[in-house]
């Protein structure tokens, strides 16, 4: 007898969950009204987002983009530090308005969040001790570390199912595991690996072999259904390419005078190749 109210409550809760998307009507208006743009960005993944050792501030390529976008809206920027696995939950639970965290665009993810036009192109590569990986054939025999909630794990599982994969909560843990020998290789996008390799005190012992497993288009993400916010962000991204801001930000972090020079593979607004996997 006492069980019935419980069951009814349960059904009501479940039903209310099914009607969630309408809970946040227009995020862009909310942002403007509150005067704050909350952006989820990495705090442990140089050079996209990390904590600078001296200034203690969260800085990086993605954070610069977020800062300029917030300025264009005329609102204050509030950074929400995140690891890879928390990116989508932060959007769906309303804790962040935008994710600017080297977020790979995939069809599965596009069902749950809305992506902007890609603003970066990377390839999935490996960081190993010198000589461990010379041929793509060897990948399936390695112990490989990467992070939870990234496309890296899925790619490995699809192409090299026999490889032993260990998932860590964030990049620094994976790097520590590589240095300890817990894993023989860590996989991530080549840009991040280069930055990590540059930080190593004994980087001469490590290398990033010229083996790319997949191409990853990175985009910013907004909650599903926030079309006005998406249009505003897309418009700003394309505009920043036209007026050179995007290139300027890129050069700060990856230009010829930066610590990790890399040729720019993608101009914002380029038609992107259909996802390789």
């Amino acid at each position: 007898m006492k069980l019935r109210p419980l069951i009814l409550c349960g059904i009501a809760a479940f039903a209310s969950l099914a009607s969630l998307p309408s809970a946040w009507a227009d995020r862009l208006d909310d942002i403007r009204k509150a005067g704050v743009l909350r952006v989820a960005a990495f705090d442990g993944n140089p050079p996209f987002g990390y904590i600078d050792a001296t200034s203690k501030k969260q800085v990086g390529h993605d954070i610069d983009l977020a800062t300029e976008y917030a300025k264009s809206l005329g609102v204050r920027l509030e950074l929400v530090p995140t690891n890879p696995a928390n990116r989508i939950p932060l959007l769906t639970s309303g804790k962040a308005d935008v994710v600017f965290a080297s977020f790979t665009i995939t069809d599965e993810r596009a069902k749950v969040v809305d992506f902007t036009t890609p603003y970066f192109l990377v390839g999935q590569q490996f960081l190993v001790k010198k000589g461990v990986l010379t041929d793509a054939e060897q990948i399936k025999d390695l112990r490989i570390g990467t992070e939870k909630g990234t496309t890296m794990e899925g790619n490995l599982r699809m192409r090299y199912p026999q490889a032993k994969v260990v998932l860590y909560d964030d990049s620094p843990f994976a790097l520590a595991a590589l240095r300890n020998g817990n894993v023989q290789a860590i996989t991530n996008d080549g840009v991040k690996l280069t930055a990590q390799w540059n930080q190593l005190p004994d980087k001469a012992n490590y290398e990033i072999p010229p083996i790319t497993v997949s191409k990853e288009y990175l985009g910013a993400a907004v909650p599903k259904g926030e079309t006005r916010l998406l249009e505003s962000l897309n418009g700003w991204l394309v505009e920043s390419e036209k007026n050179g801001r995007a290139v300027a930000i890129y050069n700060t972090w990856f230009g010829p005078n930066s610590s990790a020079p890399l040729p720019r593979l993608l101009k914002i607004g380029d038609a992107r190749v259909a996802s390789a996997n």
Partner: protein
Amino acid sequence: MSLLDAAQAQLLAPRYLGWLLEGWLTTLWAALVVIVASTLLGVGFAAARTSTRSGLRRLAALYVSAFRNTPLLVQLFFWYFGAPSLLPQAAREWLNAGHRFWPSFEVLSALVGLVLYATAFVGEELRAGMRGVPATQLQAGTALGFTRAQVLRHVVLPQAIRIAVSPLLGQYMNIVKNTSLAMAVGLVELSYTARQVEAETFKTFQAFGFATFFYVVTVAALELLSARVSRRQAALPRA
């Protein structure tokens, strides 16, 4: 889409349920290993805590203080990320390479961390149980010519365990829950697989819902066991 289709779309595909089940099985056997190991070590620890030798007593007290007043997470980080740097290179390589009947380093360091932490608590419960055994028991035993170790083993310990059964089962429940922390150091247990499933399917509620359900079921089973044991104890005549 009919309501039934919509409901079905919300469910997890069988392969993801399979992942979660595997994670749960790992949680179960890891918890079992930790329970058995920490109980065995806990007995030795409780004996050391009540030893006549003051040096041993102090060492055991230090152990309790160190392992109970630091977070399990930091201890696990130490065993996985820190301890290897203290070992010689050859040992490190051997531990990290895969061997036939030897657990991977992730499993090994997680178990070591969990066991050492649990022993501090289980040992204290056993010590409390031993304190509940009347001192006359120990005296009678030694008067009969048994060594201290023999008296402990045959007379005091069985009674101590009977007294401490309820708090011990409480600690075992904690052990089950604490296995969830090992996900940070690569143990593929329930929380780790829940995160994996969530990252692939984005069905946050379902993934975490199932994981929570499995944990609650496991702990509830221990609770039922505890309730039955204390009922049976209440029914027995007092020793």
